[in-house]
């Protein structure tokens, strides 16, 4: 039997390796906390329905880190992504359903691209084992196609432009617990796919540059979109997209240079851990704040500052470490594009900071909702995540945080980490005095941006098609009746005696004339 064939369940290999470990821990932690949170905050009647989706999604979301071959990876990838649709549409509002439809569409496309890439890689490698796949595709004539497919799939997963609306859409309407899992863990599977599948150091430089440029563009543009959007969740979504843009930069780095690849991988892991935990904390925190009033609310808002600062990359936060690792990776490359990217990297933090300011503002403005369930359990769970945000990245035994820890307290690096935030705050202050027309810009971007327009266009086209086919049916019936009528009349005159018998005699004459030629 050809090795590329899946021999049923027997060939689904699961193993824990160095790459998978951080992700396994991250995913397991986030899905568990989020699950508990969701359980605690969902009314009893709705739990079954929510967890019908949540459990498979979590199962896939955690085991994906263990997947050892193409099939099991694809299985877990799909298992996590598809049921998540049910989480997004859980509330059942029209907006949520539309968001779900868009999510499902993009997920399905992403899945398809991933499967295609996996198939090509498996054929080229004549194997299904993940390590072999990435290696074999590097030398294959189908390399470019496979990598393009992989990048498309990953790009969709992490909300790269032009699908930057993907993540905001998937967070906005999802119940908090589930949203936390999606925000923290789901997109990081894209990061895992980068590590597992992208061939290291074999692509031409142009590829790397394009990917890096795309990543940077996403980082900036998503930030702008996010500051102009409407709800705290949406802001978080755009923030994720922006941050994931940075991960894409790291992926770009790994594509072209063998030397820089380990650094890039480190950056990817660092970013995944940092961002996964922080984003989860933000989503949960937003929800916790909305459940509290008075001083508890103030305290919670204060605690919310921790992940906010982490995302901005303030000194001593997890973001600081992650950015450091990314800078190191980019620095390892030489050339105009990497250098430009390197120079621009700190500036992305301005965007993040602006996003966080906007998030903070929106969260604070939110009126408290009264819920029946006690917020004690949510608070406890949130605290756990906060603790993880504060600690994990620092204590993680790996190469990527060594450099950052070394320079964590150096003033220069502190300054580097601080100034973008300060600029953002300054801008924020300045904005208060800005003309009203500029202020009104905030809130003009609905979560999902161009994707919503696309969806509306598809719906309109569908309606137009349906209308057309209906009107065509009516005219066809009339025409048929007319033809039948004239055919009957033709036969009536053809069988009338004189005409018919004359016709016959003429036929006689024809035959005689022909026969006696």
């Amino acid at each position, binding site marked *: 039997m050809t090795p590329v064939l899946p021999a049923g369940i027997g060939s689904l290999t699961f193993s824990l390796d160095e790459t998978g470990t951080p992700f396994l821990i991250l995913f397991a932690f986030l899905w568990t906390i989020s699950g508990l949170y969701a359980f605690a905050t969902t009314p009893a009647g709705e739990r079954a329905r929510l967890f019908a989706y949540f459990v498979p999604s979590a199962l896939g979301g955690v085991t994906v880190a263990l997947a050892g071959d193409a099939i099991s990876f694809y299985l877990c990838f799909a298992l996590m992504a598809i049921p998540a649709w049910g989480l997004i549409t859980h509330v059942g509002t029209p907006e949520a359903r539309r968001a779900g439809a868009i999510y499902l569409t993009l997920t399905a496309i992403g899945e398809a691209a991933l499967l295609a890439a996996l198939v090509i890689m498996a054929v080229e490698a004549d194997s299904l084992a993940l390590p072999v796949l990435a290696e074999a595709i590097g030398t294959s004539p189908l390399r470019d196609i496979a990598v393009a497919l992989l990048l498309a799939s990953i790009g969709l997963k992490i909300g790269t432009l032009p699908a930057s609306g993907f993540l905001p859409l998937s967070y906005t309407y999802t119940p908090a617990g589930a949203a936390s899992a999606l925000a923290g863990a789901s997109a990081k599977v894209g990061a895992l796919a980068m590590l597992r599948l992208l061939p290291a150091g074999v692509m031409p430089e142009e590829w790397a540059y394009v990917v890096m440029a795309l990543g940077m563009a996403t980082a900036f543009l998503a930030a702008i979109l996010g500051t102009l959007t409407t709800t705290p969740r949406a802001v978080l979504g755009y923030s994720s997209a922006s941050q994931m843009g940075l991960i894409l930069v790291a992926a770009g780095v790994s594509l072209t240079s063998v030397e820089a690849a380990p650094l890039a991988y480190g950056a990817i892991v660092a970013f995944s851990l940092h961002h996964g935990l922080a984003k989860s904390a933000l989503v949960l925190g937003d929800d916790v704040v909305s459940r509290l009033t008075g001083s508890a609310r103030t305290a919670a808002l204060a605690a919310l500052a921790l992940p906010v600062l982490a995302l901005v990359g303030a000194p001593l936060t997890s973001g600081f470490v992650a950015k450091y690792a990314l800078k190191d990776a980019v620095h390892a490359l030489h050339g105009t594009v990497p250098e430009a990217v390197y120079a621009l990297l700190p500036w992305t933090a301005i965007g993040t900071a602006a996003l966080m300011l906007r998030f903070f503002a929106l969260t604070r403005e939110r009126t408290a909702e009264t819920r029946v369930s006690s917020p004690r359990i949510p608070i406890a769970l949130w605290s756990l995540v906060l603790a993880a945000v504060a600690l994990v990245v620092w204590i993680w035994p790996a190469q990527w945080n060594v450099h950052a820890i070394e320079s964590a307290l150096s003033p220069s690096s502190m300054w580097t980490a601080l100034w973008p935030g300060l600029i953002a705050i300054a801008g924020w202050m300045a904005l208060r005095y800005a003309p009203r027309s500029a202020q009104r810009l905030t809130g003009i971007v609905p979560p999902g941006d161009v994707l919503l327009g696309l969806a509306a266009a598809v719906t309109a086209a569908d309606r137009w098609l349906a209308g057309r086919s209906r009107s065509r049916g009516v005219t066809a019936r009339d025409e048929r009746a007319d033809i039948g009528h004239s055919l009957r009349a033709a036969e009536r005159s053809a069988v*009338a*005696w*004189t005409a018919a*018998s*004359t016709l016959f*005699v003429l036929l006689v004459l024809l035959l005689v004339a022909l026969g006696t030629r």
Partner: protein
Amino acid sequence: MSTYLVYTAGGVLLYALGTYGLLARPHLIHKVISANFMGSGVFLILIGLGNRSPESGPDPVPQAMVLTGIVVTVALTALGLAIVKRYYTATGLDNLDDKPSAGGDR
């Protein structure tokens, strides 16, 4: 002109006349008569053309054919008249075109 051709020419003419009548005259009795014209025409042709060898006498085969033909035509005519009559009593029509009957003098 040979004698046989006179008979034959008469036969052909009768036949053509009968053809026109059968085709174009609407009255059913006219049609029956026209068909008899055609039959007589053919019989004349048969007899005429069977008489082309004076030395050996007329060919008996066409004569037999004509005798048979006459009987057959009689039978057909009888049937035709019977049907026309029955059709007339059933519908009051003397033609196949749904025109009102024109009367016997047509």
